[in-house]
């Protein structure tokens, strides 16, 4: 919506600028083109003045000097001098249809308009009135007269006119602009919906039809791509689920017979011991298969989540109690520092338990020489996030490996091979945290300064 308003604002501003430009342009044109040939030089008034000046008395008669005569010839004009009595005292190329004598009324008439359709101009002369006539229809004569009031208010009127013009231009531009915007708006909305991967179905009629069609086809393409990606993810996840299913049946038999042999009193001690190894390795394979399945379901967002309000402190205690109950080696020292225990987050209890367990197990596995593990929990300053932090003072992880241990083993993003365990532990934590819209941060001060894993979840408050 803001984008549309911006477009409209620019459009109106441009229109106003263009109008002002056109106005200035018009004034220039008015001067250059329109008023340029209003009269040829010299003007009839100039000619008649020259004639009056050039007409001298000589030898009882009148005589026109050369230059004035030439001017008259050039304009194909005639001239005459009316005496005080109204008689033509002198003439120059006077047409025959022009009377030779005039009374007062006739003089005052033609001095304003035409004489026998000849446009005439007059000038005072010592002996009377010089009249110069131009050919018929060669000039238009008009009389101008204005009220002084009108002349005084002329600038104000012109200003009003200008303002009205500006207002009109503005109105027209806003009207056209909004019409345009009304057509553009669905397009803009469509484009804005594209990144949200919503289906866009625009009306492809009207002047922006091509644009609408191409937006529609982009949306269509995106939808198809998303669908095919989803189908591929589903296929991969199903493939892994299928494989883990198929591994379980033969593994049942390996585990079954191995544990039978382990318990069999008829077998020698050594073979029972070996059967025990087979059984334990079978159990490792079992947990690997189910971890693989869980990680793949989480990766492709196919793991059903059983969300409910959970207190992380309870889960942390549970993990530690289980660890101690299963005989944690003396080399490891584990401590709980839980704060804001009452705070709940929305989560899947089993998965969160698994995440904490994996982090603690990770510390145990990577520090066979023993280490001190601390589990802390706290609420963020603004009470919107709840953190669970697992730290150890073991050998830590080199900085350059930190970024990739949350990636799946053997994936293109993980360049170094997994060193201990099956390498699914931390990637699983990362995916569980992600499924809870949380954040996992791993920090290590480098060699021998331990590892800190921070899980942060939106709190329920």
């Amino acid at each position: 919506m803001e984008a549309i308003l911006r477009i409209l604002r620019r459009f109106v501003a441009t229109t106003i600028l263009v109008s002002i430009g056109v106005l200035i342009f018009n004034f220039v044109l008015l001067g250059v083109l329109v008023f340029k040939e209003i009269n040829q030089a010299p003007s009839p008034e100039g000619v008649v003045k020259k004639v009056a000046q050039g007409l001298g008395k000589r030898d009882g008669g009148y005589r026109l000097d050369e230059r004035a005569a030439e001017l008259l010839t050039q304009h194909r004009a005639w001239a005459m001098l009316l005496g005080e009595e109204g008689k033509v005292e002198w003439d120059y190329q006077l047409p025959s249809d022009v009377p030779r004598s005039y009374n007062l009324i006739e003089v005052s008439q033609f001095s304003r308009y035409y004489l026998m359709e000849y446009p005439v101009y007059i000038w005072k002369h010592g002996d009377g009135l010089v009249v110069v006539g131009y050919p018929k229809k060669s000039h238009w004569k008009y009389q101008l007269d204005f009220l002084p009031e009108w002349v005084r208010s002329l600038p104000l009127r012109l200003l009003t006119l200008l303002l009205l013009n500006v207002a009109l231009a503005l109105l027209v531009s806003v009207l056209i602009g909004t019409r345009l915007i009304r057509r553009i708006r669905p397009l803009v909305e469509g484009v804005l919906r594209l990144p949200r991967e919503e289906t866009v179905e625009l009306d492809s009629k009207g002047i922006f039809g091509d644009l609408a069609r191409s937006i529609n086809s982009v949306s269509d393409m995106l939808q198809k791509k998303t669908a095919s990606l989803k189908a591929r993810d589903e296929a991969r996840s199903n493939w892994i689920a299928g494989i883990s299913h198929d591994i379980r049946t033969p593994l049942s038999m390996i585990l079954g017979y191995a544990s039978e042999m382990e318990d069999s009193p008829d077998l020698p001690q050594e073979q029972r011991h070996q059967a025990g190894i087979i059984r334990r390795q079978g159990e490792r394979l079992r947990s690997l298969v189910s971890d693989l399945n869980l990680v793949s379901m989480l990766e492709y967002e196919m793991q059903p989540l059983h969300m409910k309000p959970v207190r992380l402190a309870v889960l942390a205690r549970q993990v530690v109690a289980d660890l101690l109950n299963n005989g944690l080696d003396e080399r490891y020292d584990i401590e709980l520092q839980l704060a804001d225990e009452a705070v709940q987050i929305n989560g899947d209890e089993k998965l969160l338990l698994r995440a904490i367990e994996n982090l603690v197990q990770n510390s145990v596995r990577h520090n066979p020489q023993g280490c001190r593990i601390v589990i802390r929990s706290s609420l963020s300053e603004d009470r919107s996030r709840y953190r669970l932090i697992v730290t150890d003072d073991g050998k830590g992880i080199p900085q350059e490996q930190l970024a990739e241990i949350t990636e799946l083993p053997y994936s293109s993003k993980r360049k170094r091979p997994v060193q201990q365990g099956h390498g699914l532990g931390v990637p699983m934590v990362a995916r569980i945290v992600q499924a809870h819209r949380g954040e996992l941060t791993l920090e290590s001060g480098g060699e021998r300064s331990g590892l800190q894993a921070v899980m942060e979840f939106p709190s329920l408050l």
Partner: protein
Amino acid sequence: MRDKKILIVDDEPEIRMMIERFLRKEGFFRIYSAADCASGLSVCRANKPDIAILDIMLPDGDGFSLLSSIRQFSSMPVLFLSARGEDEDRLLGLGLGADDYLVKPFLPRELVLRLMAILKRVYSPAREESLPVFRLGGLTVDLEGAVILGGSTDMPLTAKEHGILVKLYENRDRIVTNDALCQAVWGDDSYGYENTLMVHIRRIREKIEPDPSSPIYLLTVRGLGYKLLVKEKH
């Protein structure tokens, strides 16, 4: 107990053989097996087994629908044994009225134990499920009677003390978290009862410990919970 008739339905002949072998070793001898839903159902009608172990993925249908068909004429106990370990399947199976759900691969010992537990629960004489009686030093804790015997006088247990002791005894020699104890006694929404729990623990200690201020049976695991040490004599 060992004369109960057991039906195994699994499409893998080797799994059927293995389970049968383990059951025979445990002393069961009336064992029937079937490879698909149809034959499983006909065995059910003809031989009326006392318990069935069902696979879920079968060549002519799934174990869930087989259970539904069986339920139309029999209410015998059923244990699912499946390679499908997803929570959804587990909940569906138990929701349909199965008595247990075991995921492959399994340890034979676990299968036998679970099977026995179901049989005991379903077919044992109508005796109420009795709570254990155990010894702590010179005293006898009778959870069934909710009383501690062997002292100068018999000391009855309050309901809360009884609940706490039952939970601790179920997990004897293991740490039980405060949260688990509170939940066992006060139910799901039990946050904030930790201090009350401490009070009850102190009262229990007064009844069972020779010296309540330095306990030797009911130990505190700081920051986590409690642990009941039981040295069984028999």
